[in-house]
């Protein structure tokens, strides 16, 4: 019953988010601030992780291709498919559930504990719109983060493959272009769009409705991370079934 109650409360919150809007001039500033906090500040870690995971995927694939009949260009093909289809959209999103999600839950949760959300409500401000709407809009830029992740993953794969002596540069570039299906990119970005909404709203829900003090803010951040990851994995399966099968 509690899960049903929480799901209902989540949708009520979403209705409130898109209810009475905050003054446009104020909202514009809030959106820019959230883009900086949620998107720009995440680029560093995304670039770092993508670059090295791209390299690791290449090395592992190369070490498992012992058969001389299998062309080396398959290393690049495998790296590309792994990065575009799964690593960048899904696994970067799970990492972002920890980074962005805990940021959202703790910032909103602290405002709840410090009565700042009550202060907004008393002033006649739609607190859900003021706090959550700019985060949702900022997260619409999330596909750019994933595009950068894909690019850096492939750069990492290329450098690890070529500099490690696993594959020649030309072979890698050939493999990268082999059997390229452009719909795979569309599929990846459709997933990313849904993941962005999940990343913005589930942590926001856990912060917005949290009760208690400072200790509960920490617990809410952990719970938000767990539930965001669970919903991401389920959404990933459903979207893959719908779009690729």
């Amino acid at each position, binding site marked *: 019953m509690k899960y049903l109650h929480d799901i209902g409360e989540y949708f009520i919150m979403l209705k409130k988010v898109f209810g009475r809007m905050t003054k446009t001039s104020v909202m514009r500033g809030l959106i820019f601030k959230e883009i900086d906090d949620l998107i720009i500040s995440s680029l560093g870690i995304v670039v770092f992780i993508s670059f090295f995971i791209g390299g690791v995927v290449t090395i592992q694939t190369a070490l498992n291709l012992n058969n001389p009949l299998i062309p080396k260009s398959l290393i690049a093909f495998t790296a590309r498919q792994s990065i575009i289809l799964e690593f960048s959209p899904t696994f970067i999103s799970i990492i972002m559930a920890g980074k962005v999600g805990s940021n959202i839950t703790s910032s909103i949760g602290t405002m709840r504990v410090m009565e700042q959300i009550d*202060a907004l*409500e*008393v002033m006649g401000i739609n607190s859900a719109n003021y706090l959550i709407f700019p985060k949702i809009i900022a997260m619409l830029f999330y596909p750019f983060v994933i595009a950068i992740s894909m690019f850096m993953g492939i750069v990492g794969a290329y450098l690890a493959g070529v500099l490690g002596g696993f594959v020649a540069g030309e072979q890698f570039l050939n493999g990268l272009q082999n059997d390229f299906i452009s719909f795979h990119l569309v599929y990846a970005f459709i997933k990313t769009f849904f993941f962005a909404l999940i990343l913005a709203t589930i942590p926001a829900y856990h912060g917005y409705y949290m009760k208690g003090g400072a200790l509960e803010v920490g617990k809410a951040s952990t719970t938000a991370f767990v539930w965001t990851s669970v919903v991401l994995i389920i959404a990933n399966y459903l979207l893959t079934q719908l779009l690729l099968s």
Partner: protein
Amino acid sequence: MIEVKNLHKSFGEDEILKGIDTEFYQGKTNLIIGQSGAGKTVFLKCLLGLFKPTEGAIEYNGKAYSSLDNEKQLELRTEMGMVFQGGALFDSMTIAENVMFPLRMFTKQKKAEMMDRVEEVLTRVDLQNVNHKFPSEISGGMQKRVAIARAIVNKPKYLFCDEPNSGLDPKTAILIDNLIQEITKENDITTVINTHDMNSVLEIGENIVYLKDGNLEWNGSKDEIYRTDNKSLADFVYSSNLFKKVREAQLKGL
């Protein structure tokens, strides 16, 4: 004026407010007092519209809050100022931005006009040279003053304060009490203060509402409180020896 008619508020099976009828007067400092768990905070949140009453009505100058449509409720909210127990200042904003916040949200004033008004209210609460500081950089007493400045910057008709002097030293607490009373008189607003502080009760209590177990147990002024024969109220207000002596001195006309 705020009129409260047969106010009930329950959370599930738990009835917190059990039919309160009272009035809060314009131009006076109205106090809600009572022991912890008496229902003071729930009562205040009902007055603010943060909690919807289970039964009964709250009328602001004759208009029942629940009978108003969304737009009118919003309009009424903009006529309210609130000083929260912890100040509830926005950590990411400077003091000037905190005080300016209601003006930015609800007026079309230019920035220079807003800054003039911010300066005016900060001066009124005796705060200077703090505009560019953040809430974490000033003392608790100063934070309360900023909260008062923010609450009055948009010239509200109703001012609500939740334990405005909790956590403050006695001297600062009295300054805050006097400041709230002066602002109430200057602006002829209806001020409602939720407090535990007996100094405040005896200092600025022009209309005191005493709650016990969710019921209105007693209603009167600070002068009447000295002569009260309500045992529960006397036990609550005169629980310390100091206040017992103050009462005896008052009754003897000293």
